[in-house]
């Protein structure tokens, strides 16, 4: 899952991005409000962690203008402002969660997963498509109850497809959701990963819509 981290403090930002990466998140880190807004407008992020006291543009202002332009990316506000009116204002302006510093990294990860899940209309913490079960928290995938070992990238790709079950995602969309800054993406990287997933799981799990992209069928929520 690609996450945008907006935090102006170098030490904290460094710690948060390293910690979230350890948990398997793809993290892009910006240090001011203007950059945060510019990146979030692109819509490539599954969620954002937003500090409020950002230089150039305050976090709450960023949040407000995002929601005004109908950008629904889940936003977790991470701040030291703990007064109740601040929290209320943050949530009213469109924050999906409001967390006071300091925060436990595992809790932050869980909250982000929960935000992403809910933003895709999922209720349960596991995703299922036919015989394939995906557990985002433990980053495990099983086929008919047996664990299947996937690479990080393969897991992320499957996660994105499962979250968007029933929708067709183009190669470019998948690339943007899977690669954070600084990665040179091979033009056929997605195809290679799809190929591996089909081989490791089921050949007909991921369908190719010729000229458009890839999709997994939407199934009932029964796990």
């Amino acid at each position: 899952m690609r996450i945008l981290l907006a935090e102006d403090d170098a030490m904290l930002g460094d710690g948060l991005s390293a910690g979230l990466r350890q948990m398997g998140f793809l993290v892009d880190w910006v240090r001011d409000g203007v950059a945060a807004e510019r990146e979030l407008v692109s819509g490539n992020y599954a969620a954002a962690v937003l500090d409020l006291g950002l230089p150039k543009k305050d976090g709450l202002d960023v949040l407000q203008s995002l929601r005004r332009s109908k950008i629904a990316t889940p936003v977790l506000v991470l701040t030291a402002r703990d007064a109740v009116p601040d929290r209320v204002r943050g949530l009213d302006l469109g924050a999906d969660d409001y967390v006071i510093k300091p925060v436990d990294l595992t809790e932050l990860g869980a909250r982000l997963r929960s935000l992403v899940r809910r933003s895709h209309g999922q209720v349960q913490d596991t995703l299922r498509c036919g015989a394939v079960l995906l557990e985002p928290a433990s980053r495990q995938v099983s086929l008919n109850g047996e664990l299947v070992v996937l690479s990080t990238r393969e897991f992320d790709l499957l996660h994105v497809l499962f979250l968007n079950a029933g929708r067709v995602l183009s190669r470019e969309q998948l690339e943007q959701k899977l690669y954070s800054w600084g990665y040179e993406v091979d033009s056929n990287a997605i195809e290679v990963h799809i190929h591996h997933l089909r081989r490791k799981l089921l050949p007909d799990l991921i369908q190719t819509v010729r000229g458009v992209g890839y999709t997994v069928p939407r199934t009932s929520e029964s796990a």
Partner: protein
Amino acid sequence: MKHPGRPTSLQARLLVLLLGLVTLVWLGAALLIWSDARHELDELLDGHLAQAAALLVVQQTHAEDDAVADAPSLHKYAPRVAFQVFHDGQLVMRSANAGTAPMSTRNRGFETVRLADGAQWRVFVTRGAQRDVLVVVGEQTDSRSSILWAVLRSMLLPMILALPLLGLAGWWAVRQGLAPLRQLSHLLRQRRALALEPVDLPNMPSEMQPMVQALNELFERIERMVASERRFTADAAHELRTPIAAIRAQAQVALGAGEDQPQRDHALQVTLAACDRAVHLVEQLLLLARLESVPAKRFSSMDLSTVARRVAADLTPTAIAWHQTLELDADQPCSVVGDEMLIGVLVRNLIDNAMRYSPDGARVLVSVVTENGKTVLRVEDSGPGMTGAEMSRLGERFYRLLGSDQPGSGLGWSIVKRICDVFDVKFETGRSSSLGGLAVMLYWPDAR
């Protein structure tokens, strides 16, 4: 302030004043009426005496009998009035209450005498043109006094009766007049401790407006102070929580690094740096808190040049590490009033700031000079300087220049300003004419 014996209630004071003044005016009026009435009465009654005497003279000029006649007493006032008529020194007629001796020794005119009966009499003497007629008419002065008393009584009695009524009416009127004051005190008493919105009374009398206005201004000042304290608490929470959050996150990263040794090392390094920052911040906050209550007169005379030299020596290694040139121009001893520790903190903050916000290889010049009898400490640098807006915000607690990556606490300038206030030092910022960057000037008051 309480004066013994003076009523402290405004209402009682006004009432006493009012009633006292009314009584005084009444007494004055009574005195005036008394003297006026007496004068008029004297004239009137004297006129009557003279008239009566004239009548007797006319009558006696035509009377022939020589027997002494006693006139009958015809009125209850008659005993108070008396007359005698003499012909050639012989008493020929008198009222019953007049003795045989002449009531007056005078030849003509008015006289007030005490007669044999012990009473005081007003006597008028006149002579006829013929036969040597002498007429003496008298009247007891007592009667005049009793008339006057009657007049005064009839005037003062209603006044005395009216006084309590007037007091009651006055009490009510004063109470009505003071109603806005009571309203104000009621309004203020009802307030919560930090309710600082301005007081607004409908139909406020103009006399109260300056007071209420002053009160509102006071509220405004307190409100600004409270708001600033609240902002400080919020900012301090933010500044303290951020390094702690960083320490926690980095420690967790180190724990979760597993086989990744470089990542663990990096996380632990940052953890230590964040701890240092938290310690620095706490020290700055404590210093600021201590400065809030520095005893104002604990200062001694000290040499500013020595302090500047010591601080510059302390900071030289850092300057070398950053390839900066730190120059000191403080050859002459400059005695100022201050505290060595606090002035040291002040100078260190200024030089530290100049170095931090100037690029590598920059020059920082510190000079201590005496200009026009005033001691001036100047810290200049060749850095980017500041805009006017940035300079005006210096000293706001936790204000940091945007885009600067320096891990300052944002409290340095607050501390500088506070120490300057303590020692009455004037603080100025501007652009350095020699180095082009920021110049900070501190002017000490004339040392005496």
